[in-house]
């Protein structure tokens, strides 16, 4: 590997790396919140909410991420809303991933024994309180492995920002590759930068999993 390539272009790489971290953090938070809301929608007794949740999941889960991002980047301007490449890429990423997260969390909610809801409701908690204080904490603990998979995918999928000029790691990787003509080495460094984000993420999720398991 040619490290002068890295040192010569460190400014571009770092800029991209920081933007990828930002996109990942925002995407992670956004997709987790959205996904949880959609999962809860699908578990309510309200027909419209169930329908909305189902339609949301089936729509965003079954079209390519690229299309979701194009919808935000090229589609929204026709409604008078113009979002930057970074914003539309990150939002597309969050919405797309949230549909998978919603399914994971829904599976977790279903795995929590019914007695938990019954006990919570009979001790006077409202439906919403039951969900947020009793069911969701247990459900999310159960689905940490599939959730961390989704989060790792989200980090990697954030490379979609490069298509809509989102100034992420892949975007600058493309530029460095075309400017230096050293495609293989450039993308190897890009891969290393992604690993710097994803390896701790998968390690962290394993630690978290073990820590939470101890409380059972």
């Amino acid at each position, binding site marked *: 590997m040619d490290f002068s390539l890295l040192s010569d272009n460190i400014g571009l790489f770092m800029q991209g790396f920081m933007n990828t971290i930002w996109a990942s953090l925002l995407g992670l938070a956004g997709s987790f919140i959205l996904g949880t809301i959609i999962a809860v929608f699908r578990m309510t007794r309200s027909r419209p909410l169930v329908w909305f949740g189902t339609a949301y999941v089936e729509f965003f889960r079954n079209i390519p991420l690229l299309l979701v991002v194009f919808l935000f980047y090229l589609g929204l301007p026709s409604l008078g809303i*113009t979002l930057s490449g970074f914003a539309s890429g990150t939002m597309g990423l969050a919405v797309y991933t949230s549909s998978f997260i919603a399914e994971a969390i829904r599976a977790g909610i279903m795995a929590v024994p019914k007695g938990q809801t019954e006990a919570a409701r009979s001790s006077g908690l409202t439906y919403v309180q039951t969900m947020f204080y009793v069911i969701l904490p247990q459900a999310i603990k159960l689905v940490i492995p599939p959730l961390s998979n989704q989060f790792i995918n989200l980090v990697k999928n954030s490379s979609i920002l490069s*298509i809509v000029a989102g100034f992420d790691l892949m975007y600058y990787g493309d530029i460095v590759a075309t400017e230096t*003509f050293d*495609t293989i080495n450039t993308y190897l460094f890009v891969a290393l930068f992604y690993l710097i984000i994803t390896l701790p993420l998968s390690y962290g999720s394993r630690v978290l999993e073990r820590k939470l398991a101890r409380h059972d």
Partner: protein
Amino acid sequence: MKKHWKMISLGMALCLAMTVLAGCGNKKEEGGLGAIKDRGKLVVGVKFDTKLFGLKDPSSGNVEGFDIDISKQLAKRILGDENKVEFKEVTSKTRIPMLNNSEIDMVVATMTITEERKKEVDFSDVYFQAGQSLLVKKGSPIKGIEDVTADTKVMSSKGATSVKNIKEKVPGVTVLEFDNYQDAFSALKAGQGDALTTDDAILYGMAAQDPNYEVVGEPFTDEPYGIAIQKGNSDLVQAVNDALKEMHENGEYDAIYEKWIGKKPAE
């Protein structure tokens, strides 16, 4: 102790992956004139998304344009049959790696001859003289390069010379770079930026595609297009240059130029 082994084996796996990947880049096959003649087919990298130069017609599947006609004439002169040519799609981003990986024999894809690129590939003589210009929505306040300021958002294609040029002309300008010119044009149409910049030849093709957009101002650079060939294949470069010269002399070049650009080439 167990932990150590884990780390060591992980490290070894990583090293292995790196060597394998790095090794891929060094694969070089014998290209050149002889290989082309043995194969009986010229493999040319062209654009599939650039009107007037190389555009794939989705209904017929044929690629058409100035670069295509030039390539066919080259095949006719090198192999004796203008149909003995295969077109592979390249973009500004992929054309040099594909050429150096011997996936294609030459690049005829609106490629400007630059000193930097000359370090990577060999170029033929200039086969088209273009200049960088601006494409804007009709009625835009931008009437030429002098109206582009640091606040203007300009779009272009990754790896294109036009990015460097506009940054030199207008320091601090925001350039949004896309994978190809069609994506850049889509983004311009969606209002994601103020102007699209690249060679006028490509811009005229886009303006022809959507009459709401126009090319403004005089070209502000010289962009001599060359045919790129893997380094060291001097016999192939010579063959291409001879062919180009012959086409200029017998008027075939002018005919192709007029067919696509709509006017006679400037002297």
